[in-house]
């Protein structure tokens, strides 16, 4: 294999790993936020608006870690600075 082929192989494998491992953490954290939000809603249905708003903000903050992983995976696949085509 040439150097370029090794680089491509490594990039593709790393992109998959990045996305997969990155999604695990975000998924676990989001499930906890969802559970906590349901719990809070069941306890205080009157505060539904505030709870939902804060829940969505928290979800988006957590999800951004997975999104960063996605951006890095896409950079590896489509805009890799080390692979010359």
């Amino acid at each position: 294999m040439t150097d370029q082929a090794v680089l491509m192989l490594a990039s593709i494998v790393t992109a998959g790993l990045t996305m997969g491992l990155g999604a695990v953490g975000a998924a676990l954290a989001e499930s906890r936020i969802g559970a906590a939000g349901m719990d809070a809603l069941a306890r205080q249905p009157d505060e539904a608006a505030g709870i939902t708003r804060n829940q969505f903000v928290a979800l988006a903050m957590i999800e951004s870690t997975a999104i960063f992983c996605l951006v890095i995976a896409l950079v590896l696949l489509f805009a890799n600075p080390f692979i010359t085509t």
Partner: protein
Amino acid sequence: MRPDLFGDVTVFSIGPLPITRTVVTTLVLSATLAVLGRLTARAVVRRPAGRLAATARLTFGFLEDLVQQTAGSSSLVLTSFAGTLFLFIAASAIAGQLPGVEAPTVKLPATAALAASVFLAVPIAGIAKRGVWGYLREYFRPNPLLFPLHLVSEVSRTLALALRLFGNMMSGSLVVGLAVALVGLLVPIPLMALDLGIGLLQAYIFAVLACVYVGAAIRVGEEER
């Protein structure tokens, strides 16, 4: 196949300055929003019972509520700032659903510009409220050792703001593009709906975070009293 996710298409150039497609859609979108804003403002004055006036009032009430609840105090300037961000990002998410139109927020430079406006708004609001010295003093609290950390947080949250919006919008359009390329008919519709929903949610979150950041710069002084 290598989709160009990070670059942009140049439509035409003025001298050495390339005018990309993002710039064109941004300008058209801004003009549309400005005209709509004029129309609704006129409707509120002329026909206060009309549908357009009700829409304008509901929108403004929603934005004012958002600022009130996240920044702690409602001010017209902050409401206009966060409201502009929300309306622009939401409008670009909606415009992205039109055939042949690409949402400007799909490109990193556009989202970076939006994040940069928040980055600049924070010191401007802080200095306007508390003076140059009062604002800069915040960086050395509670201990001067934390000064580098304050700087890092300022930069990293701006970066996160830009990348979050870009990643969400771009991944949405990428997934829709893949579904269209693979199946084409009916199957991409739920994905398009998801993309639209995520776009509106991201607009809300961007506005909320802008309010939180600006509100933190304004509010710190009130806690010590």
